[in-house]
């Protein structure tokens, strides 16, 4: 950024440019420039979404009504999926918040040789596909996996029978994958806390726990809220991890959409589940945007 700012960006020949005064034309022309991308977004994103909603009210025999909704909502697989989705997302988010807070705290305030490398690794994980974690977990926690084999060698038996196919494994995998999403905004927030504030707090007699509770946590709330709600949103929508672990009993809403839409080609049913899922995450997203616009933290730190 600085490199671009320091060089003169207007080193072109201004005299050769035809002098045109466009300032007076006002907002109407300038608003027109937004139209092409907006039309594309409408055509390829909003229009399909609208069709999904419409399709959910049309059954396979082209009858319009609430029949598909009634069928899907009454099916036990839907209730299970909804409950699993919410349960896994909430537990994963809580785990990410706890683990992410601890890791960010240590990286920021108890740094060690190599902590920069650790931050780099964390940044890299952000760009990885999530299914990678699930694949690794099959080697680690599978019945014939490394953990069981190691425990067996140590004479501890095989402690992880069935763990891979339990919701807990999905939760652990999502914590692994999404913890960086909590850490990024936290690290940014902690970087803004002057070290003197912690020093002075200690000199006033506060131990580490009191400093964390009374000096650092209040600074971290906005970042925790922003990172936490984004993580909740992403874990609600997570698909790759659940798909790759492939536990038969752990079905979530995105898995149900996939099963109905791409496996059994029940488009109307898939659309009903999709509408529920979108409604759920949109509600959350609105909350997230609200938190974000109030604090200004989070998104910029996550994306840029």
């Amino acid at each position, binding site marked *: 950024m600085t490199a*671009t700012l320091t060089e003169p960006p207007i080193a072109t020949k201004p005299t050769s440019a035809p002098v045109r005064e*466009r300032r007076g034309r006002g*907002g109407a022309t300038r608003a027109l420039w937004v139209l092409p991308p907006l039309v594309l977004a409408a055509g390829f994103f909003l229009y399909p979404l609208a069709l999904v909603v419409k399709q959910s009210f049309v059954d396979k025999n082209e009858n319009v009504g609430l029949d598909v909704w009634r069928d899907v909502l009454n099916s036990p697989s839907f209730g299970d999926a909804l409950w699993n989705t919410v349960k896994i997302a909430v537990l994963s988010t809580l785990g990410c918040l706890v683990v992410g807070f601890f890791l960010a*705290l240590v990286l920021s305030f*108890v740094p060690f040789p190599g902590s920069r490398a650790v931050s780099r690794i964390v940044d890299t994980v952000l760009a990885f*596909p999530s299914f990678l974690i699930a*694949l690794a977990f099959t080697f*680690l926690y599978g019945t014939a996996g490394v953990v069981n084999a190691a425990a067996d060698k140590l004479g501890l038996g095989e402690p992880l029978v069935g763990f891979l196919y339990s919701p807990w494994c999905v939760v652990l995998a999502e914590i*692994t994958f999404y913890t960086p999403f909590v850490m990024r905004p936290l690290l940014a927030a902690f970087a803004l806390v002057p070290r003197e504030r912690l020093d002075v707090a200690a000199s006033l007699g506060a131990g580490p726990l009191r400093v964390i509770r009374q000096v650092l946590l209040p600074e971290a709330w906005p970042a925790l809220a922003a990172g936490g709600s984004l993580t909740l949103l992403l874990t609600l929508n997570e698909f790759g991890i659940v798909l790759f672990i492939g536990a038969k009993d752990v079905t979530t809403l995105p898995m149900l959409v996939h099963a109905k839409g791409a496996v059994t080609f029940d488009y109307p049913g898939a659309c009903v589940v999709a509408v529920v899922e979108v409604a759920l995450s949109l509600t959350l997203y609105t909350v997230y945007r609200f938190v974000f616009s109030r604090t200004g933290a989070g998104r910029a730190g996550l994306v840029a």
Partner: protein
Amino acid sequence: MLVWSRSGRALVWALFALVFAPLVLAPLAILGIAAFAGDWNSVLPASWTSENIREATAGTNYDSLVVSIETALGASLIAIVVGTWAAIAARGAPRFVRRLTDAVFHLPVAVPSVVVGLGMLVAFSDGPILLNGTKWIVIAAHAVLVVTFAYSTVSAGLDRTDAAFAEVAASLGASPARVLLRVRLPMLLPSITAAASLAIALSMGEVGATIMVYPAEWRTLPVSIFTLTDRGKVLLGSAVTVVLLVATLVVLMVVGLLKGRVEERRRRR
């Protein structure tokens, strides 16, 4: 500055290692090991082989790799153009148009990828635009998923750059087109390349929307990996995953080099 005693610090670091190693390091390391494992039934593989890596870069897997790279580049290019255009145009637009653009371009992050895929299937399986069964439905789905990151990264970049530069250029008599090409876009180059890198990385690993819409002859690498692991070929699947990661890093490095070239050329001018 937070934990003062040496023993306390050692304790904190030990706890850090205890959390970090199994949670982050172990999964990454295990994939690398699996990619080169010949036979693995105990703590460590019984034998090593490069056969899996060879197979992962040949035949259908090679085809999938090419498909993945083409999809990522195509979708990212579309997303960057549309996202950058929208971000810059929204700046000059009246307030409510700007907020509308903001909302529309941020929305895809809140919609599950499988739903984006489902929408594509529902909308483009018949009617005026028939994309289902072609590679374009995959590319379109990817573009929709990553455009939000392109838009918000470039918007953040615009927030950081000083509007005064463009105003000074305009006051010197530069036309809006010249201001855009010679001042605003070059100043946004870091944001645009950052957005491109992110878009490429996300697209290369995308699985949710792709698995909904992909036609048989346009199978991306993540879908291939899923097919392999679903059939129990987990070691080969790991090898293909490693190939995917390496390919992603290579593409990102090329993007970084291109950015360096552009900046170099501008400096010489």
